[in-house]
């Protein structure tokens, strides 16, 4: 057979693939058509349309909300490095084996239990109102600062558990191999265990980061005007809920590309380093 031409098997498989694509497209089209046809038949559809799907309100609010969203992104971006660093520290501490580190291990357990046991919102109130209440001078009394600290402390506890699961998921024989080559405990962790652990936990980690991205909006409850708060202001001013819809759209604009990109990166990495997928 010449390289350019297709074998009978390849022709058959291509036909099969086409058939699956047609089925997928058709079924999606039917579902969308049903929604478009049925929803407007609902009794209160007209009222919902004017209060939630108001194009003029959308156009008016969108730039303002986008501007307010910058603060969300800022809070998110400066919190993440601290969350990851603190979470790694806590996870590594919990996985340490030296008897001398027992007090630290206990502290790490107590920390994760307490932070995860209380709603994020409550921590934001407690830390965000509590610490500035101590009467420190600027900039140490900023609710923005302490709200972020509350996010960092709570999310680090969740992310630490993700990392811990990842570290424990790396088979002990990997550590044995590393140690047998003369690598120290820390070197084994850094070069052998952590790289494998982190790769495995990227999906749950992304999950936590997407949550964080949304929970950043909770900081608005102690003062800062970010997107959720701005949407609330617009809603009250115009007695229309469309700003909320616009805010939702803005959140999606960020989170969807974020998750799709990580999935794509993961898949690429998997393909580079692994055996081929079984059928």
């Amino acid at each position: 057979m010449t390289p350019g031409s297709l074998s009978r098997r390849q022709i058959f498989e291509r036909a099969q693939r086409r058939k699956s694509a047609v089925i997928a497209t058709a079924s999606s089209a039917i579902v969308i058509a049903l929604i478009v046809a049925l929803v407007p038949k609902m009794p209160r559809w007209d009222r919902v349309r004017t209060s939630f799907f108001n194009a003029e309100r959308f156009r008016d609010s969108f730039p303002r909300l986008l501007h307010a969203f910058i603060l969300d992104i800022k809070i998110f971006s400066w919190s993440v490095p601290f969350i990851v660093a603190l979470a790694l520290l806590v996870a590594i501490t919990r996985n340490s084996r030296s008897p001398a580190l027992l007090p630290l291990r206990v502290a790490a357990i107590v920390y994760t239990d307490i932070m995860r046991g209380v709603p994020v919102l409550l921590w934001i109130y407690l830390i965000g109102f509590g610490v500035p209440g101590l009467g420190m001078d600027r900039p140490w009394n900023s609710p923005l600062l302490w709200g972020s600290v509350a996010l960092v402390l709570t999310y680090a506890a969740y992310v630490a558990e993700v990392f811990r699961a990842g570290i424990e998921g790396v088979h002990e024989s990997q550590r044995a191999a590393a140690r047998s080559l003369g690598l120290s405990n820390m070197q084994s962790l850094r070069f052998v265990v952590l790289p494998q652990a982190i790769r495995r936990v990227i999906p749950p980690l992304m999950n936590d980061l997407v949550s964080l991205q949304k929970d950043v909006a909770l900081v608005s409850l102690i003062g800062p005007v970010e997107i959720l708060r701005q949407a609330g202001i617009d809603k009250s001013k115009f007695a229309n809920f469309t700003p909320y819809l616009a805010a939702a759209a803005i959140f999606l604009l960020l989170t969807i590309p974020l998750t799709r990109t990580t999935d794509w990166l993961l898949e690429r990495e998997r393909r580079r380093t692994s055996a081929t997928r079984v059928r």
Partner: protein
Amino acid sequence: MTTPKISLRDITKRFDAITVLDAVSLDIESGSVVSIIGPSGSGKSTLLRCINLLEHIDDGELLLDGTDISIPGFDPNTVRRRIGMVFQSYNLFPHMSVLDNITLALRRVLGLSRVIAQDRARELLTRFALDDKENAFPDQMSGGQQQRAAIARAVAMEPEVLLLDEITSALDPELVGEVLDVVRELRSTGMTIVLATHEMGFARDTSDLVCVLDGGRIIESGSPAQVFGAPQQERTQQFLQRVINAGRL
């Protein structure tokens, strides 16, 4: 008499209630090849892991060049730098290419530069017929290729003692021959080799000393001629008989 390279003195190892090694004593002379044979589950892998301080021993002493390395608080890293190990299940690092698997410890433990470490690694890959695999990841290689990569990784560190756990189990007869040659070659460089194996021919042809382990005890040890030719213990005879019946000798 010279001090043995490694001395095991009444080494006992328990996992909870089971005693896996029961007062094992063994002197391993410098530059010799010692084979540990015996039925599955008799404690061969555990013995090798104890020598490399990967298992904590419950009783006894372990001497390297006459120094007790089993005393608590002894830095295991200095020992492991001198004693290399190839694991029964290879234990290559799946997130690294073969080349990185080999150079990691060269760079981080021996402090070699990347270039020098890679040169040394490539030399070994050529010797083990893995030239074209330096950028492959462990999951993309056959069992035999992984096994050879694991041997190359341990050998690259130029240890004084090499512990080999079933290194021929995934190889075809031709490669078994090649690995055998490598073992002989390593021995000619003065390396001390301890190998656990089910490959009786391998043990008979390469070793200076053969030890038969059964239920955590060394029930017989001697030259290959003694152990395979005129075994003293009834248990050894039974074991060898079964091996012969299975066509493995």
